[in-house]
């Protein structure tokens, strides 16, 4: 296993650990810091993803996306959350619907579920020549010569994509734990953090498996997440001003 693969696994492991720590922490400030660190490691992730031992991913579009992700997820969004926190003036998630140790336990179970689902995923074959590579798995690491034909789907041998075993479990567990956080945490800010966790998980999935979306779209997705957190932050500010708290379990005036 080369350095890049090691770094990929390290970053993904880090992401998973942050998820579990998030479930254990009651202070909202800590959760914001954790989601910031997670965002930064996600920004670095694309640089580590390799194919055939060489880093094919570092193109101009990738660098732009990685840098923008790093800045937005690592700095801007946490800054906005901190600001909302200051305005709303809350510190703790006092009593979550499920206790911290129980929720960590459930988090571990969700992680196990993700690993099990990850083992069942079969990555599809690629037809494009520049991504023809041997299966990752450790032993069979023989570089194949790249086919010179342009668009050589017909000439190239279709191969499996090289991918860390941790990618799909990390992505799925981040999504699931994000949803879990939204359900169990009562404070509106924590729910936004859960939403960000979901987005992070989907980002892992996207950057590892569907990396060739047009850059315009990728940036559009990031912009949408940014605006979503912005609008949610404003809404939280209004909630705290109107209700004197941001406890969403008390937002139950509207029902049938």
């Amino acid at each position: 296993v080369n350095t890049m693969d090691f770094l990929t696994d390290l970053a993904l492991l880090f992401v998973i650990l942050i998820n579990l720590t998030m479930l254990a922490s009651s202070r909202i400030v800590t959760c914001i810091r954790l989601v910031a660190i997670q965002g930064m490691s996600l920004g670095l992730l694309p640089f580590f993803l390799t194919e055939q031992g060489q880093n094919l991913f570092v193109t101009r579009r990738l660098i732009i996306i990685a840098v923008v992700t790093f800045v937005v997820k690592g700095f801007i969004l946490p800054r906005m959350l901190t600001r909302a926190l200051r305005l709303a003036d809350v510190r703790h998630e006092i009593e979550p619907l499920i206790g911290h140790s129980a929720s960590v336990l459930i988090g571990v179970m969700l992680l196990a579920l993700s690993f099990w689902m990850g083992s069942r995923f079969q990555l599809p074959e690629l037809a494009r020549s520049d991504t023809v590579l041997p299966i990752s798995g450790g032993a069979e690491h023989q570089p194949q010569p790249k086919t010179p034909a342009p668009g050589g789907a017909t000439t190239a041998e279709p191969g499996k994509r090289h991918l860390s075993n941790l990618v799909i479990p990390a992505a799925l567990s981040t999504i699931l734990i994000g949803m879990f956080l939204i359900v169990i945490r009562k404070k509106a800010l924590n729910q936004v953090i859960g939403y960000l966790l979901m987005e992070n998980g989907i980002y892992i999935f996207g950057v590892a498996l569907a990396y060739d979306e047009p850059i315009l779209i990728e940036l559009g997705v990031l912009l949408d997440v940014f605006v979503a957190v912005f609008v949610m932050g404003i809404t939280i500010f209004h909630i705290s001003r109107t209700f004197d708290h941001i406890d969403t379990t008390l937002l139950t005036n509207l029902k049938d």
Partner: protein
Amino acid sequence: MLPLLVLIPAISGLLAFFWQEDRTRRRLLVFAAAAHSGLTIAAWWYFDPKNQPEVLYGLLMLDSMGMLFLSVVSALFLAAALYTAGYLGMESHKAHRDYLEGFFFVNEPERVFTGCMLLFLTSMTLVTAGQHFGLLWVTVEMTTLVSAPLIYFHRHHRSLEATWKYLLICSVGLALALLGNFLLSVSAAGTDTEVYTRLQLTGLINNASKLQVSWLKASFLFLLVGYGTKMGLAPMHTWLPDTHSESPSPVSALLSGALLNCAFLAILRAHQVCVAAGQAAFTQELLLPFGLMSMGVAAVFILGQPDYKRMLAYSSVENMGILSFGIGLGSQAAAFGTMLQVVVGSLIKGSLFLVAGNILTAYGTKTISDVRGVMRVLPLSSALWMAGFLAVTASPPFGPFLSEFTILKAAFDTGHNVSAVLFLALAALIFIGMAAAVLPMVQGTPSAQVLERARGERLWQVAPPLALCLVVLVLGLYIPPQMTHILNSIATGLVPAVVVADADPARKTGKEPDPVAPKNEESPKAELPRQDETQSTALDDSARVPLSESSTSRALAREDN
């Protein structure tokens, strides 16, 4: 044409944010809406389905389905803008007294409201023109974000709660749709397409046979759940009644008539890809139960509903259920009916919400039992309220009768007898539930307090819903042949029936079952059953089996690899 359709509302929206004077800003809103509608009509005039100009590397293009949805959005927005211009004039900048709990609240700055409304139009236009699944996601999410401030126009705690639920539930739902996009991209990994066309609708449809079936199915599942949340399909509809009942009436009209359709359009795009990949049976099996469940939930909550705006909101859930049901049937006739339902269902719902706004203004309550004698207080509105009720519950001679009847007939023709009976029963329940609410509201004697406060009906309160209602009435009596043609051509892309008709020539009944070009100028009513016979009989017994067989065998072949 398309750049103008996007840019005019976008620029006027940004202008509105900084425009200080109220009167001219309202004119700007109406002007932008009128310009948008005019451009839409012009786009129809020059519309050539074979040769549409592409914008931004083909990310944006208006095909016939997009044009249909764009027209609905544009018409509704024009009506809502005219209403809003008057409505904002009536809502002063002073603090208002809450009708329910008696506290005082202020309104959102009018600049923000108008600006967001125009940006809402921009984003919906982009959704209808989106040809790339990534762009579709970005624009649908954009509609959520710019419409959230619209819901929070009356700044009090109930609308705030509705806004929060809307933001959070729809954002989480759409996050799942984003995952669906990535799964779709994985399934298309083998299609050997360029970066820009990987998730392009036409590229996906053309390369559909090369898509990886299991990933495609997973992708559709996520897209359905994600966009279904935004569309208000049960059981993901929970945000919808709160949002529709708490937002100002023109916004409710837009959300219900235009926004939900945009999410439905996104599901239809995914469905198109699945149909092209031979997976129609899979998507139909999902869409049909979701549709019936939505109708069921709507029926349960409409019966005995104490709040008339919530009742209309659940009626929107029902409408979305009908659309999902219609596509789930998988026949040409049903798809035709569904497309017609998209038009008439949305327009009449818009009209009803605007009238509900008039009633709310005059009575100051949303409780059905407190509203009596609308006929005396607001004669025109009460007529529109009755007409809208009859139309939305699919009574003749309104448009929904035609569309829902077509869907129902197609359900029987395709052998979905149980579903069809359920459909009919739920529609009947909803009719009863709404009748029990609407009829007492219209009749009876209003309280002296209401009569004293009544200031008559203004033109802006009545003309927009009246226009929408008239369109729905006309479409129930006569559908122009051009429209039949367009609806048929859209319906063809949503069903796998054409392949079947070719594969089984013995079943052809004389006429060519090519619905794309019905040259005869008969009335649509006479034309519809003909397609039923040719298409759906071919579908019910022979079509489904070979299709699903071939798909499963292909899936098996893939797993072997």
